[in-house]
């Protein structure tokens, strides 16, 4: 079924169409969320929230436009909200006990297992920089589109992207030196 038809059916309250639409974007959503949050559990939560919000507010979506950018901006904002919550909760834990806050993983896994593959390269980047880098490199987004997703001006989006590229370059250099 065509995506436009699916969305039309979803707006009409057809749950099966919602499920199919979700299936189409699940891998993409997980990839975006995982690279921004760098934590599988948080990424799963962000995906679930983003899908719920997308279906709940599908009435405000313009069916003449593409679904992916609309959903992407929703997802990215959800991830950034999650980061803010995580920071707040970290501060709360800091106050609660003098020890540094524990990594926030609600599952029994350890942090290294959840973040290891990308932790080395993207770990030094801020969440907004990671989001900008992902949207630029994987989705071919322009500064304007990244700005729309991050809820900031195109200039600010360019700054995030520039910083991300510089940091990534230096990380790569460091890792290459390490190998030599």
């Amino acid at each position: 079924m065509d995506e436009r038809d699916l969305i039309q059916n979803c707006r009409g309250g057809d749950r099966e169409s919602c499920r199919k639409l979700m299936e189409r974007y699940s891998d993409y959503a997980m990839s975006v969320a995982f690279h921004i949050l760098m934590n599988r559990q948080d990424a799963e939560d962000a995906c679930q929230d983003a899908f719920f919000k997308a279906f709940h507010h599908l009435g405000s979506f313009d069916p003449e436009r593409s679904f992916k950018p609309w959903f992407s901006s929703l997802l990215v904002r959800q991830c950034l909200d999650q980061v803010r919550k995580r920071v707040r909760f970290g501060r709360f834990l800091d106050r609660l006990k003098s020890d540094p806050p524990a990594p926030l993983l609600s599952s029994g896994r350890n942090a290294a297992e959840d973040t290891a593959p990308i932790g080395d390269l993207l770990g030094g980047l801020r969440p907004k920089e990671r989001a900008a880098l992902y949207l630029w490199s994987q989705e071919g987004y322009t500064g304007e589109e990244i700005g729309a997703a991050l809820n900031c001006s195109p200039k600010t989006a360019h700054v995030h992207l520039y910083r991300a590229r510089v940091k990534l370059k230096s990380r790569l250099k460091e890792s290459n030196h390490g190998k030599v």
Partner: protein
Amino acid sequence: MGKCRRVKLLFRIVPVVSLQSALIRRHLLSCSRCSEDAADLEEARAAILPPEKIGPRRDHWPAVSRRLDQAEKTIPGRRFRQAWRWAFATAGLLAVLAVVLWNRFPRRPEADPFAGGLKLKIHDLRVYEQPAQAFIFQTQDADRTFVWVEQR
């Protein structure tokens, strides 16, 4: 900069893929800025994991469906509350403000006709059982007042 834009425009216009690649390759060889951009893009793509490497993901549909059900049930009441929340809050605030002001400033006593210095007031005047008219003259002397009564 202008040359880069022209190449990007050409890239969009040219319909044949092989021609597009040749165009890009040739431009990258001559433009350091674009070749740097391309290298950055390659590096960024290498740093991003493909979905299959992220691992199996959880099926979110049952949870999302349940939340949608819950939201549908609560929508009418919630919408009503959201729409009227500010109205109720403003009305409540105004009511509290009115009560505070009412208690803070004592009500003015009823106007006393004698308060302005008037010494005499005639309500009903008759002369030989006939209605009459009175004229009151207040002199400069505070203790002396003349009353002139006339039959109508």
